[in-house]
């Protein structure tokens, strides 16, 4: 919170400085003015330079970009009130669908819906990988992998998810690097398990003070199975011997049973 306050005051200073020159155009770029010494940089800023920079720094998909800006604006207007709201929401635990979606988007996923029996999402391995961010962890995943993340809220076991914070895509022939995110790439996953991790013992002790505290903790985890990676062209699989075999075997079976 201290950081935020500091940034806020900086932003205020900067806007005060800038508002002497061109208030309406620059107000939307508040987050970008958090340079260490705004007094030096602010005077020689021109609106055109700003716009090019903001365009060049492709932070994320347009949606989350907007939300970030909104947040900043809100904060600069009344920081204290927003804090209170957050605390109330944490206590109440009542989320509307929009809030759920927003929180999920902040973590980096989107719930699509339950997996149906008819869905054929589990495919054979493709030589493609992606680096995807969930919360504050990054995973290098490819098709068929399973990853353990911190417990994801608002999703049930057997839900399909779309992980949209893709940082990098790669295949044997090419690599696509996001700056820092590839907006039109997506990784599809299925929730397999909500489980507790093994117990961790927290042991506190002070020497010569007759003080010992033992506490157990079990972290909640979510197991995801990656089903698909989209946004990169997939090379043809050379070793398709196995599926062929299965395809040959199946008709044989049908013939004998019939």
């Amino acid at each position, binding site marked *: 919170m201290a950081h935020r306050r500091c940034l806020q005051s900086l932003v205020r200073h900067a806007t005060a400085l800038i508002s002497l020159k061109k208030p309406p155009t620059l107000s939307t770029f508040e987050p970008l003015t958090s340079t260490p010494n705004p007094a030096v940089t602010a005077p020689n800023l021109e609106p055109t330079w700003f716009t090019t920079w903001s365009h060049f720094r492709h932070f994320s998909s347009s949606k989350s970009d907007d939300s970030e800006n909104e947040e900043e604006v809100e904060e600069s207007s009344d920081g204290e009130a927003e804090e209170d709201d957050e605390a109330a929401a944490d206590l109440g635990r009542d989320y509307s669908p929009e809030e759920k979606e927003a929180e999920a988007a902040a973590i980096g996923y989107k719930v699509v819906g339950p*997996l149906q*029996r008819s*869905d054929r*999402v*589990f495919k054979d*391995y493709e*030589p*493609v*990988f992606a680096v995807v961010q969930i919360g504050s*962890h990054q*995973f*290098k*995943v*490819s098709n*068929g*992998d*399973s*990853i*353990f*993340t911190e417990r994801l809220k608002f999703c049930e*076991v*057997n839900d399909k998810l779309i992980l949209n914070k893709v940082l990098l895509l*790669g*295949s*044997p022939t090419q*690599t696509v690097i996001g700056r820092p995110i590839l907006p039109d790439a997506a990784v599809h996953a*299925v929730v*397999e*398990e*909500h*489980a*507790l*991790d*093994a117990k961790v013992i927290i042991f506190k002790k002070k020497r010569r003070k007759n003080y010992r505290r033992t506490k157990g903790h079990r972290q909640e*985890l979510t*197991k995801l*199975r990656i089903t698909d990676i989209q946004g990169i062209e997939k090379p043809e699989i050379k070793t398709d011997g*196995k599926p062929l075999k*299965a395809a040959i*075997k*199946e008709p*044989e*079976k049908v013939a*004998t*049973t019939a």
Partner: protein
Amino acid sequence: MIRVRPASLHKPFSSSFNIAVSFTVRVSASKMALRGVWQLKKLIVSYCDWGGSSRGIRAFMETELPTFKEKNPQLEVVTELIRGQHPHLKGFYKNKNERVVCVKNLTTEDILLHATRLRNALGRKVVKLKTRHVTKHPSVQGTWTTDVKF
């Protein structure tokens, strides 16, 4: 391929071979792990109709259990009366593991939470995870070594 030995080995050789083939195909489609297949097969809710520690579970069976059953049609829920014992939930998994949770003196919500946890689990043994990323194909573009020159 996963080799599965059919139970009916006493049948003539040709037919048993056919059964083996069909079985392998089905198993490779569901791939053993969850992949859309619920792992909890059976849930036993054991309670006492007299004891004070079963007060919560008796309320649970009246209020929450019917909806829980309805929401999980894949699951076989059995209630069991054991007098003079503390109540517990017992889950039987597809991998032949079983897990028992004691629910004595718990409230309805807590018992529902434990039941849902049993349902959401895969039934594997609880071990400290070596890695949070499990893959069969660790590298797509080739493992880096000190000899690699770009």
